[in-house]
């Protein structure tokens, strides 16, 4: 690997990210999968970094899942997107940040489509007006929330209590970065670092002391693929793709995986259990899996938040070995206590993969 070669490519794919005043839209599914992540985003940006990040309860889905499942046409999606933009315009913001990669891709696709076909934009404006009497301005800057964390990564590192370093050996932890497909594969110049060697998560890992693992199947989809998962008959295909990634990263012995997409961490995490059940194989050391985190969770850990407050008890793959490596203190007994310190019940533990 020639690091300078990558740096050269990264320098070609930079995007402008304003430092403040963002209109934030959430993901449909992240709050169910890893509920603390979006909470951490607002916590870090507003609380820790003191930024103006605005959100409104009136925003809806961007329509991306339905769009990628072929259940609604693009025109409908674009009208939904137009409404989101109208909410931003009404709130007086110009910088739009989405929590979801598919939403980010969806917004990018919509804006690019309008750029290529202005008559479509006119039509969508009409649609929106007819549907809900709203008008919008296109966002001046469009970002994914990981772009913002990337943008403030050094500040987070400065304020952080921990680094992604093995406490015992002092060696940087080996982190696989997994980028959601819709982040930059469609429009490489919309993502930090481009599509081939994205830098958005790699930059975070590097700033926080870890080492990025580059393995042959790094570009491959996590396996979610919308239709592939949503239709039960296709789930074998979904898990097979995930399996392919793990087989490819296995020789590198990564300590963790960091992701920036709603679906990826979920499937990379949960499918490890399914793969263990079906093949008897686990990819971490001593029968554990490889823990999978969202970038907000990693940022939270670096900043010293309590793992259970970050919602890490909702992970299938045990996160404790990773916490131990860094030296993050946690109370094992508190893992399944709610915010009110009451027991939230314990999941059944599988035999195929080691969990706590």
């Amino acid at each position, binding site marked *: 690997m020639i690091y300078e070669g990558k740096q050269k490519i990264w320098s070609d794919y930079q995007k402008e990210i304003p430092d403040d005043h963002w209109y934030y839209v959430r993901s449909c599914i992240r709050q169910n999968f890893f509920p603390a992540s979006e909470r951490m985003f607002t916590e870090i940006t507003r609380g820790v970094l003191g930024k103006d990040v605005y959100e409104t309860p009136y925003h809806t889905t961007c329509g991306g899942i339905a769009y990628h499942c072929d259940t609604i046409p693009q025109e409908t999606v674009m009208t939904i997107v137009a409404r989101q933009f109208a909410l931003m315009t009404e709130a007086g913001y110009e910088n739009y940040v989405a929590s979801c990669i598919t939403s980010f891709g969806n917004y990018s696709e919509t804006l690019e489509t309008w750029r290529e076909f202005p008559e479509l934009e006119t039509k969508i404006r009409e649609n929106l007006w007819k549907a809900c009497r709203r008008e919008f301005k296109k966002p001046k800057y469009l970002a994914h929330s990981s772009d913002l964390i990337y943008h403030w990564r050094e500040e987070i590192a400065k304020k952080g209590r921990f680094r992604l370093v093995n406490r015992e050996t002092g060696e940087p932890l080996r982190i696989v970065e997994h980028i959601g497909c819709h982040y930059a594969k469609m429009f490489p110049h919309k993502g930090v670092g481009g599509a081939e060697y994205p830098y958005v998560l790699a930059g975070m890992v590097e700033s926080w002391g870890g080492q990025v693992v580059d393995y042959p199947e790094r570009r491959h989809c996590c396996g979610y693929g919308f239709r592939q998962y949503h239709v*039960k008959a296709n789930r074998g295909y979904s898990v097979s793709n995930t399996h392919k990634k793990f087989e490819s990263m296995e020789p590198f012995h990564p300590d963790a995986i960091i992701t920036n997409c709603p679906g990826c961490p979920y499937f990379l995490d949960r499918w490890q259990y399914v*793969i263990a059940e079906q*093949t008897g194989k686990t990819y971490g050391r001593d029968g554990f899996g490889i823990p999978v985190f969202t970038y907000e969770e990693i940022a939270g850990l670096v900043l010293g938040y309590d793992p259970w407050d970050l919602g890490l008890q909702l992970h299938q793959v045990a996160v404790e070995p990773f916490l131990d490596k860094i030296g993050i203190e946690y109370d094992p007994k508190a893992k399944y206590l709610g915010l009110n310190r009451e027991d939230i019940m314990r999941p059944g533990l599988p035999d195929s993969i080691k969990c706590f």
Partner: protein
Amino acid sequence: MADFGFKLSKSSTLDLDRTDTRVYDILCKTDPDIRTCMACGSCSASCTAAPFCGMSMRKVILALQRGQDVRPMLGKCMLCGKCTMVCPRGINTRHLILSICKYYD
């Protein structure tokens, strides 16, 4: 094992590092012209047995290079020799078929 109602499917990717090419390697020695196949498909197009079993000498050669099963295709070959007649590279495909039938296991 838990039943999820779906299973890991076998990868359809041809992994050339894990391909069993033993038969092909033998053929490269017994019928070295096999290497000169350029996959033009004349053999398949003229094949008398093709309508009965999907026989295609082009596919057979490729399948041997990729370590895939060739048995079903060869099961209806009539050795009529038309493939050899038409091969632009002069490969003795008929002998090749007999060699494959001999060395395949």
